[in-house]
């Protein structure tokens, strides 16, 4: 009796495998509707990199069975039949299909078997496959929706070619402390840094063979380093130093995060020195530095100082830049790139494409802390022509932090568009003409994953390959004592303290 049941299961299993691999040749008897099917995530008309993990999705149409047929020019048709509305692709087949269709598209037909035993075919949609790969990894911090307190958090890396995710560092190993602002030099996993706050505070820096933790707070800077940007030479990191404050709204928007004051500094890894200039340490609020890909200019945002009697919603940041010669530690002159007054809104998070041509930035009603500001949209500035235009796929929710891929053809950004609460990473294709394409949500093995996932994907950064720091060494460094950075003796201290040194405020 038991044996019979055993064989039955095997037969059933084999039949299932055979059916799900090849699928029926097609549904012949069906009713066609002119609407697109509803499914999540929305992958209709998106452009995807050929190395992306399968775009599994959940069909939101009611039905007893689902049949998905995928056709393309250069690959055999792939058919999936499923009793569940969740459609999962096999990774190998998916990869082959995308690789064969580089520069082309795959067309997807969805059929749903209704309660009346009749199939309905929905309008066909396409997914375009770009020629260019995206960097293999995405690094991000997963963090709860909190404002003041924190507890569980970790910086993760996700293999974009599959669904593998693993922590780079989890705070359960580092005294439950806060860790943030992970950043990479030219998307290189071997040149990276992140901050630790609270217990074991300091900035962990991996620069090639050396891994160390540094305390960037000096007697002459108002805080330790905050928002970072690696110089392309991999030896210098620009930071803002900020006195961050927060308050809460009673109606509508939840909170405001703002800087009481902020300046810029540059950290020299070789000499373990922090330097600055009176030009970027003024009474205005300078923040969010980013290097030009040639390393000659430091772009940053600047707003009037908090001593000026401006209400919070009138504080708008301009986009400026200053020359900096890393070899001689010489600062150039400040240039205005884009004025908030010209746009009527506040500029933040400038990030320049690796070819130096385009700059993506956030534009919001005020301030720079856009993760809590639904008016935040992405904009693109052509640095050659000076023209700027909105990213065509902005949402009415927060569209914020973004990062370029190393080849400049992709960028990832955070958006709350899917649930209005937590940021999720969206990937967008950016073609050589400066045109950006419809973004897609980071695919998950289980597409329903996002329905109940209440953590923020914070600071998504594309990385060329896996971060493979020796984890024991990383833990040792992260939980060890930091070295103290020294302040550049050549800097005019008076200029610094005369600017926005916190004690003077």
């Amino acid at each position, binding site marked *: 009796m038991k044996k019979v049941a055993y064989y039955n299961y095997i037969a059933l299993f084999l039949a299932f495998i055979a059916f799900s691999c090849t699928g029926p040749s097609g549904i012949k008897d069906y009713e066609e509707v002119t609407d697109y099917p509803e499914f999540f995530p929305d992958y209709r008309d998106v452009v995807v990199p050929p190395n992306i993990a399968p775009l599994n999705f959940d069909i939101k149409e009611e039905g007893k069975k689902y049949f998905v047929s995928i056709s393309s020019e250069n690959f055999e048709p792939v058919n999936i039949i499923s009793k569940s509305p969740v459609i999962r692709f096999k990774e190998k087949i998916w990869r082959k299909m995308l690789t064969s269709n580089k520069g082309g598209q795959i067309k997807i037909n969805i059929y749903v078997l209704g309660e009346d035993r009749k199939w309905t075919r929905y309008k066909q949609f396409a997914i375009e496959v770009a020629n260019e790969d995206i960097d293999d990894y995405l690094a991000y911090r997963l963090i*709860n*929706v*909190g*404002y*003041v*307190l*924190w*507890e*569980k958090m970790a910086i993760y890396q996700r293999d974009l070619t599959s669904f593998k995710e693993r*922590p780079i*560092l*989890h705070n*359960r*190993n580092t005294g*439950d402390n806060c860790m943030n602002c992970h950043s990479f030099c030219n998307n290189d996993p071997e040149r990276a840094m992140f901050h630790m706050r609270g217990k074991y505070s300091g900035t962990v820096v991996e620069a090639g063979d050396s891994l160390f933790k540094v305390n960037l707070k000096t007697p002459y800077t108002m805080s330790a380093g905050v928002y970072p940007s690696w110089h392309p030479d991999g030896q210098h990191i620009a930071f803002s130093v900020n006195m961050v404050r927060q*308050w*809460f*709204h*009673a*109606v*509508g*928007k*939840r*909170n405001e995060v703002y800087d009481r004051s902020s300046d810029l500094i540059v950290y020299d890894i070789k000499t373990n020195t922090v330097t600055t200039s009176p030009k970027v340490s003024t009474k205005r609020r300078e923040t969010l530095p980013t290097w030009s890909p040639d390393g000659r200019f430091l772009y940053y945002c600047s707003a009037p100082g908090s001593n000026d009697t401006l209400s919070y919603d009138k504080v708008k940041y301009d986009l400026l830049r200053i020359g900096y010669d890393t070899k001689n530690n010489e600062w150039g002159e400040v240039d205005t790139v884009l004025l908030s007054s010209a746009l009527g809104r506040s500029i933040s998070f400038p990030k320049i494409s690796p070819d130096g041509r385009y700059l993506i930035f956030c534009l919001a009603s005020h301030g720079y802390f856009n993760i809590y500001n639904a008016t935040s949209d992405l904009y693109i500035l052509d640095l050659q022509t000076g023209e700027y235009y909105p990213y065509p796929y902005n949402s009415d929710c927060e569209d914020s932090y973004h990062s370029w891929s190393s080849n400049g053809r992709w960028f990832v950004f955070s958006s709350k568009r899917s*649930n*209005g*609460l*937590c940021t999720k990473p969206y990937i967008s294709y950016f073609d050589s003409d400066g045109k950006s394409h419809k973004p897609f949500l980071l695919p998950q093995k*289980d597409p329903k*994953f996002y*329905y*109940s*996932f*209440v953590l923020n994907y914070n600071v998504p950064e594309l990385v060329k390959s896996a971060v493979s720091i020796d*984890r*024991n060494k990383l*833990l040792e460094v992260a*939980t060890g004592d930091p070295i103290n950075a020294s302040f550049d003796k050549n800097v005019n201290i008076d200029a610094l303290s005369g600017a926005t040194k916190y004690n003077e405020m």
Partner: protein
Amino acid sequence: MHYNLSSLFTKIIIKISNDFQIHDIVKISSKLSIILYLYFFDPDIMKSRYSIIFSAIFFAIFFICVLLFIKPELIYHSQLSGFSFDKYSLVEYLAYPGGTTECISLFLFQFNIYPVAGALVYTLLTFLIVFILTMIINYYGSSKLDLLLAYLPAVFIGGLLTNYSFHLVFILILLIMLLFFYAFISIMKRFKSALVRIISFVILSALIYYMSGGLAFLIFSLLAFIYVLTKSEIRSIIVAIAIFVMALALPYLAYRYVFMISLGDAYLKLIPPYYYAKVDFILYGIYFYMPIVLLVKKAVGRVPESSAKTAPQPEKMTPAMLVQYIFLILALILVVHFMFQKDEKYKILVDYYAYNKQWDKLLEVVTHEPSKDRLITFHTNRALYHKGRLCESMFDYPQVWGVDGLFLSRYMVPGELLPTAELYIDLGHVNDAIHWGNEAFVQNEDSPQIIEQLIIANIILGNYKPAQLYINSLRKYLFFRRKACNYDRYIRNGDLPDIDILVKEKRSILPVNDFAVNREQPDHDMIRLLEDNHRNKMAFEYLMAYYLLNNDLGSFIKHINYADNFNYVSVPKSYEEALTLYAFEMQKRGKVMENLRLSKKTLGNFADYLGILKKYEGDRAKAKRELEKKYGNTYWFYIHYISPVTTKKKIIIK
């Protein structure tokens, strides 16, 4: 018996996977416990029926202590942890040594929401510990003190459960440790080959290390080491050396090549991440008790080569047994009694009633046993408001915290985040309720109760997308699925009256015009809520209470006119007392308050109050005793003797 047991397990699994009723689980659990009892108490091992009777009495008392004295629902409410059937969360637990046991413990812990089921879980786990311990002890042959040795951990587990923050994982780790050690002994007995023994130990070690963490593994290794040393064979020495090497090497290898953990955690991890309660030294005592038992048994005599199953058991009740029986039962009762954290239980009980909006019960408890605890004062004030008695009776209860017993947000500790969110939902200050709810969620993301508050707050504000996200999250908690479905139904169709009434009521008092929340001065927020909505009675009464508690009669008078918006039949007692005092002070400054109609009773009482003060020539310290006796529940007494503004007492957060 085997058939019964497996069919019961199958039933449980089927029930869990369907939308089951808790009474089914309780029924099945009760049956299961009886079957387990009969099944495991192999008559070869426990021949004495006295043992069985004693065991039944002991665990019945244990069960009653947990159910009626400690109360599992309060343990649950204190820790507010749930078990989410979320794949991502589960995978997180599997990523580090000890996570698996933590995950299982969370699954079991959720049964505390139903008191009988919770008490059964604790009793069953403790029973299994005693049972396995008995079997282990029996391997060493019987002695007069075996009963005592086997039951002592159960006595102290009972004591540890009186600590409401005690994590279930600690009991589970002990059980797993003993189970693995018993398996090891069985293997040692069955297989004589040193290689097989070593391989078995390696497998068991790796398993226990992964499941329960470094410390459980080390104690297991220590037990195995002691056990092996009790053997006089050469091959046992080889096994002992292997155990020693393994105990040193495995954690290091795990640290170096497998898990991302610190070296300290690799060897000694016991406490779950993000668990901040102090671990009682008694727990470590119980863990290291087993090796001591083995050493004691070793000192008494060598391990018999033959099975312990053949060890003779007394058929008759001996005086030694009787003494042990009585001692153990008394010890259990006394340990639970003396370790019992009465104040902690009281505080959790009040918080529990407040969470469930059982205001009458709450007031009954605090009236019967007044407390100066800040959270209790806070909930008492909430209960008084909801029963329409805040302005009448607030000074009937201790108000030593002043305004900080009315609002918790000025000085916040983690356990007060959720109550603050609840208060702000009550007040219609919902945006800020979400703020505090999220802070609470950050501190305890496994709490379905916090998720529920966030759902309610988001629904009130019409933030349906975030509400849906939280609903989907709540759906993954076994005992909250139905609630999640109801909220889901509500945001889709709006056809659930219970939710709809609450939502409409709160929406009617929401502020319209934005303002900056003032955490330091919540009265400012109350004024803004009132300005936007004159009918927000709770904001009014909290504002008035704030001024009274803050000795600010000027502001009290300034805003008293808002009372016209609410149909008070007469001037509330505390307001009348404040007005009397204010009029008196004004009169002293030559200002007469006309149109102030105060009851004769209050005026008479105030005259009497002043008379007593006068009797002591205005010496408040001397008059205190008499005044407290007669007028201890008046605003006059509060402002003269209790108010922190008067006494200049300050809260210091360390």
